[in-house]
Every structure is written in C-alpha cells, then in structure tokens.
C-alpha cells in the first residue's frame, strides 16, 4: 500500500521533465492532458463519488475560461487574480444551477444540467460585447513571466520559452488542485458522498442531508472545472463558445468513464489515453469519431470499470495468484 503513495509524486516529477525532451509538441500535448485531467477529475467528484451524472459540466469550464480571458485580456488583470476568479465564478454558477438540479433525479437531473450548459453556451455565443460572440476571444495573454525570464537569462537550466513556463505553472497548479481534491474525497465529506452514491435513501437515514451534500459536491466540481477552464483558455491561446457546448461535456464524461470512475486517478488516465489516442488516430485518418465509437463500445461490453478498473482487476488477480502460491508453497 505504501507503493501506491509514490505514484503521485513520480508522475509529478515526470511531468516536470517533459520539456527537457526538447519537443514543443510533447510539451503541448502534456499541457493539454494535464488540464483535461483536472477537468475530468472534477467531474468525477460528481459522477464517480456522488453518483450524479452531469451532461453539462462544460458550462463551468467555459465560464472559467471566459472569466480568466476577459479579466486578463480586457481588464489587464494579473493571472494571480484572474485565475482564482475562474474558480469562484465556476463555483457561483454551480451554486445557482446546482440548487435547481439537485432537486431532480437521474434523467431529469441530467437534462437540466444539459439545459443550463446550453444556456451558458448560448450566452457566450451571442453576447458579442462581452464574450466576442461566435468568434470568441483570441489571443489571451500569457501570465507575466517577466521575473522568471530575467532569472532564467542568467541561470542556464532555467531558460525556457514562455509556453514552457506556462506549462510548468500548469503542472504545479493542477497538481495542487488534484491534491486538494484527493484530500476532499478521502475525507469524511467524501465518504458521505459515496454513501449517497451507494444508497441515497439509506444515507438520508443515517442523518445525511442528501440535497445539501449533493449541492456541495456540485459547487466543488464546478469550482475545479472553472479553474481548469481558466488554464485552458490561456493554453489554447483563445477562448471560444464551444468550450461550453454539450460536445465538450460529452468529451469529459467519456474521459472519466474511459479511465474509470471508480478510482481517483481513473479520469486522469482517461484524459491521457483519449488525447494520445486522438493524436495518433487523427494523423492516420479523419474518421476519429468512428474509432472513438468503437473504442467505447469495446469498453462498455468488455471493461465497464474503465481502464483503471481493468488494470486494477488484472493486478488484483496477479496478487491473489502470488498470495495463493505463497500459501501453497509454504
């Protein structure tokens, strides 16, 4: 069990080393994966831990992206204020939307999350003055890395391009967010969420105010999705209305399920696999949706626990065999 605790720090260090590979493309890809990992993990707080399937999680991603974009581009605010604001606005939207959503169950809940997300999209799409409308907001500035660049000019190891400074920043910020999320799901609050997922009626009858907890989970998920969106807008060099469109919601949901919603790192693995797979396939053929569809069907019929679930099952079987061998051998 101790070994498992090492994975996090290992991946963190590995992520930091990616720019050292010298390829701008790898850094770009890693940056993409890491931001989506945060987005997907935030959704998993709702889907995997609380049992609430949302079809409109991209709403908070979009809100976060636009808030950071607008604050940095139009109001010239520094990143250190504009980025947390993404989380605050994401949480605020989630509070308002979630208040209505948690009153509904299952399919109606999902439909309402979809409706709210489409409303956000429609606003972003049409409110030209604020959001740039259909064209979106291109050229979001990078955070001011001036002071680091001055240091980097003198110290050889620390001399990187702006995009790479941003990558390091992303790694650190996402790692921090994931750490916080991990604390949350491992806490009593997290346990209460799983009781809701397992049996909401029973949870009520051990004193859990199910609606209040669901709303809290909704707000937290929205906050972290907003933070992911804030990073993504800068990374993408532009913020566009489709960040809130339902297809984005479906992408992140697929990542969560692909990687496995039963574990904390499942969604991150799903993000990694999906983005890498997309990269590879797109270079050979334009029929990425077809490939994705087939992968999903295989997953559903063969590996309902997602990749993490399948890997976990295989490892579990190996351990049992090893332990069995011990017992027999001794």
């Amino acid at each position, binding site marked *: 069990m101790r070994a498992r605790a090492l994975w996090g720090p290992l991946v963190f260090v590995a992520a930091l080393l990616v720019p050292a590979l010298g390829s701008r493309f790898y850094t770009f890809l890693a940056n993409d994966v890491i931001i989506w990992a945060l987005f997907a993990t935030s959704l998993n707080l709702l889907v995997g831990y609380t049992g609430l399937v949302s079809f409109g999680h991209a709403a908070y991603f979009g809100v976060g992206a636009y808030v950071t974009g607008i604050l940095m581009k139009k109001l010239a605010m520094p990143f250190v204020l504009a980025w947390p604001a993404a989380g605050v606005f994401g949480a605020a939207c989630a509070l308002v939307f979630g208040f209505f959503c948690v009153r509904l169950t299952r399919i109606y809940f999902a439909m309402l999350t979809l409706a709210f997300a489409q409303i956000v999209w429609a606003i972003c799409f049409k409110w030209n003055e604020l959001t740039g409308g259909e064209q979106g907001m291109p050229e979001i500035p990078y955070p001011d890395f001036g002071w680091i660049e001055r240091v980097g000019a003198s110290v050889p190891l620390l001399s990187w391009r702006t995009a790479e400074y941003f990558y390091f920043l992303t790694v650190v910020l996402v790692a921090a967010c994931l750490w916080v999320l991990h604390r949350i799901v491992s806490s*009593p*609050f997290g346990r*209460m969420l799983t009781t809701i997922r397992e049996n909401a009626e029973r949870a009520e009858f051990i004193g859990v105010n199910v609606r209040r907890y669901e709303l809290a989970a909704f707000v937290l998920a929205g906050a972290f999705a907003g933070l992911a969106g804030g990073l993504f807008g800068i990374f993408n060099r532009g913020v566009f209305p489709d960040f809130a469109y339902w297809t984005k919601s479906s992408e992140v949901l697929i990542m969560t399920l692909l990687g496995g919603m039963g574990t904390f790192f499942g969604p991150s693995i799903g993000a990694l696999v999906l983005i890498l797979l997309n990269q590879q396939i797109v270079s050979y053929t334009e029929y990425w949706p077809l490939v994705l569809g087939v992968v999903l069907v295989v997953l559903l019929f063969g590996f309902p626990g997602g990749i993490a679930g399948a890997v976990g099952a295989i490892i579990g079987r190996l351990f049992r065999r090893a332990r069995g061998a011990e017992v027999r051998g001794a």
Partner: protein
Amino acid sequence: MLEVRDLVKVFDGFVAVGGVSLDAPTGSIGAIIGPNGAGKTTLFNLITGHLRPDRGHVKLDGRDVTGIAPHDLCRLGVGRSFQRTNIFPRLTVFQNVQAAFLSHRGRGGNVMTPVERLYRDETLALLESIGLAARAGEVAAFLSHGGQKQLELGLALALEPAVLLLDEPTAGMSATETREAIRLIERLARERGLTLLFTEHDMEVVFSISERITVLHQGRVIANGTPDEVRRDEAVRRVYLGERH
C-alpha cells in the same frame, strides 16, 4: 416517547393507512402485525418522514415531528431498518457502520482529515456487539442475507437512537437465524434502554418479546394491547384464521 395519532395516507384513492394511532412508551418493546398489504411499511414510512401523511401527527417526546425530513428525524434520535436490506453495497462492513458514526457525530462536513482512522474503536465495538466484527473488511454486498440484516441493525444502532423502528428484521431468515437475531435485538434494546417498535410476520417472535402489540388490517387498527389481550381478540382471530407462518 413516540406518539402517533390518526395518521392517514391515501394513494390515488387507495387508502393505505386510514387513521392509525398508537403509543410507544419509553423503553417499551412494541410490535405491529398484520397480513401483507395491511399498511405496516407505509405506516413506518409515514412515521420516519419518507412519506408525508395526509392527516394526523407524529410526536417524539412531545415534539411534533410529522413529515420532517428523514435526516432530521434521524438526528432527533430515531433509527430505522428497512424491509428490503438497505445498506451501502460496495462499501465494506466497517465502512458502512463508520459512515453512520461520521454522520451522527457531525463530522460529515470535514473535508481535510483522512477518513480511515476516525471512529475506528467505536465502529469495531459496535460490530462486536452485533457479531460482525470478524467480517469487518468484507464488502457489504457479498454478505449473506442474514449478515446484511445484522449490518442494517448496526447502521441503525450507530446513530445512538432513543427509538428504534425495525421493519421486518427477520424477513428471509431461517428459524435459527431468527431466534438469534431476536435475542440480539432484545438484549441490545434492554442494554441501551431503547424504545423498540418493529413489524413482523413471525408470530412466535412477536409473542415472545413484545410488551404491546398493534394489529393492522387494511390500513386500520383492529386491536391494540398486551400479547394475551391480542391473542384472545375476536377481530384478530377472524383476520388470522387460516393465516399460517
């Protein structure tokens, strides 16, 4: 302790509960019996807030608790088990009971402490008292039916209730399991001074431990009294003639 007056619940014209009153004095053990469909579970659902009554009230220790949300009623000291086992299937036995402690002791809002060690001793002690300590690490869904029923009891007890409502606690159990379960329930009720109200089909069980019995038929009370009184009641004999368990 628990006072129920004139509870009525009608579903689309069907009278599930048609004016039921009963009392459960502090520390007493009472049973509610009646043929299938008599309205026993609906009555429980009305008392515990899962359903709102159309008329009537429920008082706990003099305080009106009619129709309040289940989680609030829980906090006021009412524990309940369900007819169909209602546990947290993919959590372990330990985690199931621990969750109840976490909720009851008000730690549910804590977002930063790792949860494994909290209330470890209390949880294990409770598991010991209901005989599930050896299975603490097992996933709840894989327990036998009897084991799950025991776990249900454990969940209700973890809330340190003053009143315990058990809906068919021995349903689906063999004769031996039933005897053991009833002995356990009676012992725990006495030890903790609980007010116990349970529904049952098994007459042996009912007559062996209850102090008061309420008989329901088609949503109405047709008899209410000590076991002897009920045994001799005309209406009850009519209803139960031919009923065998």
